[in-house]
């Protein structure tokens, strides 16, 4: 059926009233592409049962007021439908099954923000062409990406859980924590170094100070340094990043003060070698071979240097304790070190060593959130399966909340 407006339009431009097999797109509109940085328009129109691959749609656009229209895109009319999963249910620029085409600014047709553009569609089949009504739209950059609102909700909810469990841990700090073998060994390693009169080597990994794993490594260094201060053992911390070195310097100094031995602190505990990966490794291997530390700690993020360090350490007979979130290096730490803190155990380590309510509460909060994610995984899979069985999209209202939309 041909809508009245279209008939009117066709009459206006003086085409024959007979519209033939190709029908003009229905409900055509031009809108600013939502949730973007601007310089882009979007087109939407209703699908037609007669869409086919032989019928093509051309997009013609011009600056308003329209002077010369320019062809900017062409595609078969049975493509560019909105499918389930293209948009979350809370942001639907076009209905499911409608046509939706994004028209980004391009060299051929630049789109500027704040200026109106007129767009019309040309439906073409065989020798017949049908123009749609022209529609106008203005592009603008947006201030909030609504599509990612689930991400923000997740962050806020996690913050809430974390603060809640920290508060709970302050009231009741005696939360059960399972054993982590690597951490029980920290004390043993320091003790052994003291007995043997050999130094302890502590590495903070390859990351800079803005890396979370480096921060975790420096927190653990503080705890280790405090124990070292008690035992009066030598601690050596070679660095690859001067900023991390400066931070560690402060942390170790503070640890000695807290342990009541500020006099035992040596300025050359932390030292810089170079910021280059393998020359640093060569130098640290050299230290291991020459000074034969009795305990080696590898905390933080690592790359290929991991095995070069741990194999050399193993050949000198040191106790080796590693902790890393670099999943690609975990197999090497696990096979060559005596103890390895796997993944998030690195972040948890400081809580174990200090037993402070804030840190213990964080662990609790993370566990609660992980339990939540686990149930999302299981229930989500069940819902997704049920959705296929029952042929319904109804479950997407729940599933969309845990999808990463861009």
């Amino acid at each position: 059926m041909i809508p009245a407006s279209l008939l009117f339009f066709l009459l206006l431009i003086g085409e024959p009233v007979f519209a033939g097999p190709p029908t003009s797109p229905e409900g055509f509109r031009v809108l600013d592409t939502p949730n973007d940085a601007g310089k882009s328009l979007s087109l939407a129109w209703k699908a037609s049962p007669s869409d086919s691959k032989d019928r093509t749609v051309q997009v013609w656009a011009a600056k308003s007021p329209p002077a010369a229209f320019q062809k900017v895109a062409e595609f078969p009319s049975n493509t560019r439908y909105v499918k389930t999963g293209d948009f979350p249910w809370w942001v639907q620029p076009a209905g499911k099954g409608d046509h939706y085409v994004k028209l980004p600014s391009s060299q051929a047709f630049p789109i500027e923000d704040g200026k109106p553009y007129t767009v019309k569609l040309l439906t073409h089949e065989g020798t017949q062409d049908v123009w749609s009504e022209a529609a106008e739209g203005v592009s603008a950059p947006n201030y909030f990406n609504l599509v990612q609102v689930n991400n923000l909700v997740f962050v806020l909810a996690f913050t809430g859980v974390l603060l809640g469990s920290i508060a709970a841990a302050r009231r009741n700090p005696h939360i059960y924590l399972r054993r982590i073998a690597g951490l029980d060994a920290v004390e043993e390693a320091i003790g052994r170094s003291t007995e043997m009169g050999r130094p302890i080597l502590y590495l903070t990994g390859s990351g800079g100070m803005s890396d979370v794993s480096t921060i975790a490594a420096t927190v653990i260094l503080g705890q280790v340094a405090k124990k070292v201060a008690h035992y009066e053992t030598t601690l050596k911390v070679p660095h690859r990043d001067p900023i991390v070195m400066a931070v560690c310097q402060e942390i170790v100094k503070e640890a000695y003060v807290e342990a009541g031995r500020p006099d035992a602190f040596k300025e050359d505990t932390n030292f810089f070698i170079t910021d280059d990966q393998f020359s640093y490794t060569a130098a640290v291997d050299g230290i291991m071979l020459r000074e034969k530390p009795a305990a080696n700690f590898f905390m933080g993020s690592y790359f290929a240097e991991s095995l070069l360090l741990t194999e050399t350490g193993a050949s000198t007979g040191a106790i080796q304790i590693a902790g890393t979130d670099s999943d690609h290096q975990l197999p090497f730490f696990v096979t060559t070190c005596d103890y390895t803190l796997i993944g998030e155990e690195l972040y948890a380590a400081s809580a174990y060593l200090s037993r402070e309510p804030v840190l213990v509460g964080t662990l609790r909060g993370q566990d609660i959130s992980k339990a939540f994610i686990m149930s999302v995984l299981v229930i989500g899979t069940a819902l997704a399966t049920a959705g296929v069985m029952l042929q319904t999209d109804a479950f997407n209202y729940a599933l969309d909340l845990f999808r990463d939309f861009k």
Partner: protein
Amino acid sequence: MIFLKRQLPLAITFVMGVVFALQYYIPHPVSEEAITKVSDWMKIISGFALVLGIASVFHVHAVKIRRQAPGWGYSGVLFAAIVITMGVGFWSGGESKADGAQTAFGWLYDYTMVPLQGTMFSILAFFIASAAYRAFRARSPEASVLLVSAVVVMMGRVPLGQFLAPWTWDVTQWLLNVLNSAVRRAILIGVSMGSVGLSLKIILGKERSYLGGGKDQ
């Protein structure tokens, strides 16, 4: 003074953290420009920090040379290497190529840094073999599983293994695609929870040891 020493850094952390977390949700070009700019700033700051690093190197090795500690000659070699590289680098204007020809700086990089890097890296080939010999013993059920999956993948990855035991290829693919994906995904999720948790604590001022200890809660 206490404010400047304690509260001000915490306030800066909070503001920076919140602003750049929210930046992600703002598609406006201004927000993208902001993150690009501040990323550049970070590079400039670390450029300055290199001075600290060099001072540390200088201190360590100057002490060795002054005391004529064992191996002090090598510290001299290190200084010489630094000075020569810097001299050549500045003389070449920091470019490794000029008018299509290699500069002295480029030569130094290609014939010292590159082979040294490659050699250090390739030592891993020897170490991975000795680590396998030491670690892959069927001491416990867990160790046995580790050992078997490693051997199967080692077979499946090379033509000779695929030739001798063709099934190892499919098993390798399955191990990598399914089991390995599962574990990586779980570690990724867990690590991410931990790192988001730590980041939040830092922004909210609950974790402040990076400012040098201090547990004043």
